[in-house]
């Protein structure tokens, strides 16, 4: 079995350092990388294109993060998904957006393109075409007692749009197939030629719930491309914001999962704590979700004078209330009956899909960007990943519970030792290629970009949901239809982040 280190050794000198090395490789090495992925020698972290080459981001514990790029031949490249299924949706998206042909990929159905953009291959040739919805062939599940339940794209709640096609045998789900792309906004193309401010605003709106993480990753990618070092105070405060976002989202999710099991008291109490955190964020950084607060070079503004005290008060409120909510969760058998053993995802699947965040860590995958590939401020603030093995709804809740507690500690440590000084450094240049991986509450978000003359020439943003959505299909199999909301909420994948 070829390891990632072997592959990189055979790939010669990196064509770029961003700071992760990018090796321009031959088709032979590219295909060997597909085999390495299929054998579990490396994790797939992203697959994208700039129109001239395809880029494959890989990670292995011994060699870190690396990117392989393969020059396209007549818009074609050897399919990774043919050997390694987690790449398939990414390849289908590349075909829709760029018109690239993944040679050997069986699934020829479009993914993001529903036929109504009025343009074909918007990032490739972009030729006009009539708007006509394309019928979508769902995979078949056959058998006399089976029936289909189509759900969405408009869902019965305050939820993002997507379509779920259930094939059920009575109450039991035999197959779930997702169809996504409804909220595709064309972000990769909007990024083309965007100045830094506009590109930053776009990145911050890829997935609003993870806006801090996206701004963080975008800024780090720009800083990597330009060789800019943000000031120490900005580095620490970025960590504070990222952890506040994590706490707020996890609290919301814990409450919402319980609410989907009709245990609404948890939602009510978690909602109070979440609101307390959002108000502290508003007081500190001028925005409840801290949107656009992180910018390339540092922060858009310093923390407000009374900010640290507001955060301390919010954390104290969590300290006072959260342990009792956890006890309530632990001791309510009617709730545990719904979450324990529901929606199980195997450790093997999670490893193959390199699913990040609570989805991965609830099924024994230890990866957490903050620990595996630490970036400031986590380079000086060790994070021990919160890991469970069971892989069910309960485990995904427990990972969140653990991470709320952990994030509180991280924020306190950062604020206790907050450096003085400016929060913004000027960018050291306007050209270069940068890659950044940042741990959002949902998992690792990846930003790759190439800058030219202070503007974004090309950019790609890969949401953690790409590698989590497919596992939801596996999680629900054999469960009852009524447990789907519970499973879905325990994943809480982003539709917007995935659809781009």
């Amino acid at each position, binding site marked *: 079995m070829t390891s990632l280190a072997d592959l990189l050794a055979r790939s010669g000198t990196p064509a770029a350092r961003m700071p992760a090395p990018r090796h321009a490789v031959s088709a032979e090495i590219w295909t060997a990388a597909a085999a390495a992925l299929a054998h579990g020698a490396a994790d797939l972290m992203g697959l994208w294109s700039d129109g001239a080459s395809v880029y494959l981001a890989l990670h292995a514990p011994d060699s870190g993060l690396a990117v392989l790029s393969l020059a396209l031949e007549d818009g074609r490249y050897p399919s990774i998904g043919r050997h390694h299924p987690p790449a398939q949706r990414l390849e289908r998206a590349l075909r829709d957006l760029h018109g690239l042909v993944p040679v050997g990929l069986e699934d020829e159905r479009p993914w993001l393109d529903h036929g109504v953009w009025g343009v074909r291959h*918007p990032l490739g040739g972009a030729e006009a075409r009539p708007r006509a919805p394309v019928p979508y062939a769902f995979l078949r599940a056959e058998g006399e007692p089976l029936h289909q339940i189509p759900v969405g794209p408009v869902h019965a709640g305050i939820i993002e749009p997507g379509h779920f096609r259930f094939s059920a045998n009575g109450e039991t789900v035999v197959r779930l197939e997702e169809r996504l792309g409804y909220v595709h906004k064309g972000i990769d193309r909007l990024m083309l030629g965007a100045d830094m401010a506009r590109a930053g605003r776009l990145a911050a709106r890829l997935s609003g719930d993870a806006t801090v993480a996206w701004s963080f990753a975008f800024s780090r990618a720009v800083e990597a491309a330009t060789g800019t070092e943000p000031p120490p105070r900005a580095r620490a405060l970025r960590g504070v914001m990222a952890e506040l976002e994590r706490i707020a989202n996890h609290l919301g999710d814990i409450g919402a999962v319980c609410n989907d099991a009709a245990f609404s008291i948890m939602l009510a109490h978690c909602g109070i704590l979440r609101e307390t955190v959002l108000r502290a964020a508003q007081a500190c950084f001028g925005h409840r979700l801290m949107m656009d607060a992180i910018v390339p070079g540092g922060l858009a503004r310093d923390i407000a004078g009374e900010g640290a005290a507001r955060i301390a008060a919010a954390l104290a409120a969590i300290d006072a209330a959260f342990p009792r909510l956890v006890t309530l969760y632990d001791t309510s058998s009617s709730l545990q009956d719904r979450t324990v053993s529901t929606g199980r995802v195997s450790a093997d699947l999670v490893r193959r899909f390199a699913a990040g965040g609570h989805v991965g860590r609830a099924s024994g995958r230890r990866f957490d960007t903050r620990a595996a590939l630490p970036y400031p401020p986590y380079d000086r603030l060790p994070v021990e990943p919160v890991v469970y093995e069971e892989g069910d709804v309960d485990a995904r809740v427990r990972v969140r519970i653990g991470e709320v507690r952990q994030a509180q500690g991280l924020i306190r440590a950062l604020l206790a030792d907050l450096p003085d000084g400016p929060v913004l450094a000027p960018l050291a240049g306007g050209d270069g290629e940068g890659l950044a991986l940042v741990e959002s509450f949902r998992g690792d978000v990846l930003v790759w970009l190439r800058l030219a003359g202070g503007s974004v020439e090309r950019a790609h943003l890969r949401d953690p949901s790409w590698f989590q959505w497919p596992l939801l299909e596996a999680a629900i199999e054999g469960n009852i239809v009524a447990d789907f909301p519970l499973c879905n909420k325990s994943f809480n994948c982003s539709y917007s982040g995935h659809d781009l």
Partner: protein
Amino acid sequence: MRTLLLEGLLKTPLTEPGPDQAEAGRLAGELDALARRMLGRSLSIRAVDAGSCNGCELEMHALGNAFYDLERFGLRFVASPRHADVLMITGPVCANMRVAVERTHAATPSPKWVVAVGDCACTGGVFAGSYAIAGAAEDVVPVDLRIPGCPPDPVALLRGLIGLLGV
């Protein structure tokens, strides 16, 4: 659980007067009277995400928490457009969502109002001009009210609903 419930009974409500809460309380008072005049005691809202980044959804969820407690005014989110008086549309309308938005609007019985929630639904926001965007909400369905913001906070959302009822 008993302790939590008992405390909930004995403790003062969280909607204590503070700058934010006072504002929400004042608005809520106005809303109460207007909503009753027009629709009796209830106004049913159907949220339609037409392509939002999900930031607006987070703040619409927040309307339900103990601080804002939307339902005490008879305002509630419902699961079907057929039960709704108001459609709150978030996001720019993605081309891929256009038909779904039109059908949701058609499925809502009259009289009905459409509220464009957030900068994207009002104008297309940062996504305006993309090949994948059909436009702002008003480019697809008639809009009665716009609540700008990125995202609008819960107080802005409440204020907007009052504006609608004052039409």
